[in-house]
């Protein structure tokens, strides 16, 4: 099941324009291969908590997706379709979106779900004491800043019109508003409203969520599993399964459990792919993702500020060998900082060749001459340290390959391995008093890291703009390309999808020339599923995307 690239397939503007007619048919009846039974799936890490508004991680979201529902949700082509809202309308000025909820929505505890639950959820994210970290996403709503600062009693841009209608108004037209709304699970006001927001991080509602999604939360045994059961009142029809169990464990442990038939589906590490595909009871699913790995370069370092050095590094790294060797072909290389299957990726991009000879020539021309094994210029050796975060086995193994590749062209690379929080202390340094400070040349040279589009390329904003260098953002490397900044700014206010795609593709072209991020590879995700489990179909949106349609034989 390999999927080709999704090319320019989100048509946000189109979606906005057609919004008035986007009312879907309600009361859909589900077709199940079988009804009832219990399926067990596995994930590699246990969720931290199940309140979607408290610092969610992917492992949290995989479970939250079972229990909660949103107003709108992404389609397979990453446009947005109605979920609990049956449709939405956009105002003339493009600032106000009015959502109409489906009729008869209820929470798992039987209470009716109304527009005030929606308003409650969005308002909570702007509360001055809200502890969950997601305020920035909705800070574009009118009146959010005033409410967040404690200067207003409510957010003026969130209006309940009647029980089934709610409107959201932004200060300016905001292009990625649908991706924002499509990323927020609605919380029941009668449950979470009864808990003081300052104690949300610790409250028991994090462990016993009440939602309106396809499955009702039953129990969570820490270190073991989470159990959910079918919600009879789910708007899209009751899920096919009676019960779904999600186990947590180490990669190889869960692979063994999959091979032994103890779990029906599990993520598979690359090394286990052959075991799964050769097992007659199992099917291997290969899924494209929107994430990729890159080498970050500290542009404050004079060695790395030289574009010839960055270009030579990119040409010297044998990315084909990484894809065919380490990834065993389950992935592809990419030539700029957008995932190649996303509409922001410029398909006409000039590929970065694997050309060690050309890399040597570039370095020679830039004045870097060989002194023994490594190159020097003005008495300074071309020596860099590469920080490799642990936790992703394939990525860890690319470190020594990059080191060997770069040695062949005369660049000396020393590797330092560290866990992710340690790497963060280098990328976002603090001074002796613990106060965050700006990055300097000494903090790091090169680092390996992954990045992925969760919902919208606007997520690169704080990684690419000069005013977002640490401590004010995630522009660790210190990139400052005016044309990139301008295109990124235009990207947030340009509503026409084609124009918007052109802007990000321009960013992609410029960053491929700059190579401040040296793009490496885009790994595919592998899952194994037992033949007993039917309808399992992970895609670019995640592993549990169609869980309501799963059934067991």
């Amino acid at each position: 099941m390999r999927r080709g690239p999704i090319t320019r397939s989100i048509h946000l503007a189109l979606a906005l324009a057609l919004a008035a007619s986007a009312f879907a048919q309600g009361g859909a009846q589900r077709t199940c291969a079988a009804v009832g039974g219990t399926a067990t799936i596995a994930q590699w890490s246990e969720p931290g908590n199940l309140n979607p508004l408290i610092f969610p991680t992917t492992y949290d979201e995989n479970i939250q997706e079972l229990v909660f529902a949103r107003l709108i949700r992404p389609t397979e082509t990453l446009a947005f379709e109605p979920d609990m809202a049956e449709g939405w309308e956009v105002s003339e000025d493009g600032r106000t979106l009015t959502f109409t909820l489906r009729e008869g929505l209820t929470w798992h505890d039987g209470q009716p779900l109304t527009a005030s639950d929606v308003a409650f959820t969005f308002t909570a994210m702007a509360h001055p004491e809200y502890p969950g970290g997601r305020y920035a996403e909705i800070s574009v709503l009118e009146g959010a800043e005033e409410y967040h600062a404690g200067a207003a009693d409510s957010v003026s841009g969130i209006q309940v019109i009647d029980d089934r209608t709610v409107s959201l108004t932004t200060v300016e037209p905001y292009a990625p508003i649908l991706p924002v709304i499509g990323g927020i699970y609605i919380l029941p006001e009668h449950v979470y409203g009864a808990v003081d927001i300052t104690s949300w991080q610790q409250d028991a509602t994090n462990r016993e969520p009440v939602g309106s999604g396809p499955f009702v939360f039953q129990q969570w045994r820490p270190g073991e599993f989470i159990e959910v059961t079918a919600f009879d009142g789910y708007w899209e029809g009751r899920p096919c399964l009676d019960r779904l169990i999600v186990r947590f464990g180490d990669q190889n442990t869960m692979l063994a459990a999959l091979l032994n038939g103890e779990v029906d589906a599990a993520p598979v590490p690359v090394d286990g792919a052959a075991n799964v595909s050769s097992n007659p009871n199992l099917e291997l699913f290969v899924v494209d993702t929107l994430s990729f790995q890159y080498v970050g370069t500290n542009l404050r370092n004079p060695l790395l500020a030289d574009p010839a050095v960055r270009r030579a590094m990119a040409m010297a790294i044998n990315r084909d060998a990484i894809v065919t060797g380490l990834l065993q072909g389950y992935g592809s290389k990419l030539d700029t900082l957008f995932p190649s299957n996303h509409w922001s990726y410029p398909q006409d991009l000039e590929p970065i060749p694997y050309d060690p000879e050309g890399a040597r020539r570039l370095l020679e021309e830039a004045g870097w001459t060989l002194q023994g094994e490594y190159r020097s210029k003005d008495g300074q050796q071309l020596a860099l340290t590469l920080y490799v975060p642990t936790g992703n086995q394939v990525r860890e193994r690319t470190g020594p390959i990059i080191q060997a590749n770069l040695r062949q062209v005369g660049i000396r690379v020393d590797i330092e391995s560290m866990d992710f929080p340690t790497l963060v202390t280098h990328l976002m340094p603090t001074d002796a008093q613990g106060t965050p400070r700006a990055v300097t040349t000494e903090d790091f040279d090169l680092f390996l890291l992954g990045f992925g589009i969760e919902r919208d390329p606007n997520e690169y904003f704080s990684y690419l703009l000069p005013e977002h260098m640490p401590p004010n953002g995630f522009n660790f490397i210190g990139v400052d390309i005016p044309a990139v900044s301008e295109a990124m700014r235009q990207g947030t206010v340009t509503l026409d999808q084609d124009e918007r795609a052109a802007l990000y593709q321009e960013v992609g072209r410029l960053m491929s020339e700059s190579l401040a991020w040296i793009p490496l590879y885009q790994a595919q995700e592998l899952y194994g599923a037992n033949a007993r489990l039917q309808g399992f179909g992970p895609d670019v949106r995640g592993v549990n995307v169609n869980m309501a349609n799963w059934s067991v034989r």
Partner: protein
Amino acid sequence: MLPFLVNRLAQGAVILVLVSFVAFGITAAAPGNAMQTFIDPNIPPAELRAAQERLGLDRPIHVQYLRWVREVAQGNLGYSFRTGRPVAAFVGSRLGPTFLLMGTAFALTLVLALWLGTATAARPYTVLDYGVTGAAFAGISVPSFFTAMALVYLFSLRLGWFPTSGFEDYAAGHAGWRLFVDRLWHLVLPVTTLVLTGAAELVRHVRSAVLDEMRQDYVRTARSKGVGEGAVLRRHALRNSLLPVITLVGVSLPRLLAGSVIVETVFAWPGMGRLLVESVFARDYPVAMAINMLGAALVLLGSLLADVLYAVVDPRVRYS
């Protein structure tokens, strides 16, 4: 005996305070903190900083330590940074599975090591002795994760006798005696792993301790009186060789509750060892500290217990 106990407990309390100081220092000295594990483009650094302030992570280490001590003194172990769970209940829920796993393994290890150790000491330099010694060295040399994976491969994937991992068959939802049997079934492979590695070490100690005693004059006396070889071994030599074994048992006590990081991880066992690793990687200090302190308290308790058992086993030992 009583003054001795009081004295030792007082010492223990002082040591615990010192341990907490060092443990907190080392934990906090690890680069990065809990909030820095969340680098998410949708969450700006200002939000991360606010969260760090709420958790007190922006304060100097000694301030964080004193606050932790103050809370603990009031019986409040705090909340997990990562999950928001109350630490006492969170860590407490992991005690049972670890105790079950480590307790079973330890009892079996003891029985196996005493049996094989005595048997080999009774017939040193025979085929049995060389066989057991060879197996023991193999057991000590092979890392437990390898033993665990080899057992899973053989007994789960090849033969299909035992489940690969977990505490019970979650999908089946057993109750009553069926649940009991199911859990025993899940216990077999992790316990076997622990026994194979643990007994390998202990059997060597028992063998040499018993051999030492067999050369003593009183053993010769017993033999010359006509006491049978089996009785010499069991009633005389083995009893006297228990002293070093008791020390080992004493210091092994903390392992009963602290769990085995590797075995719990490989078998997805919901115990303390796995929780400790997860909390260290997540920089979840309140949880890591609670487990560290529990471990330290058990080490102290274990060595105290060993000392008391000395007096019970060996009448020559008197504490005054």
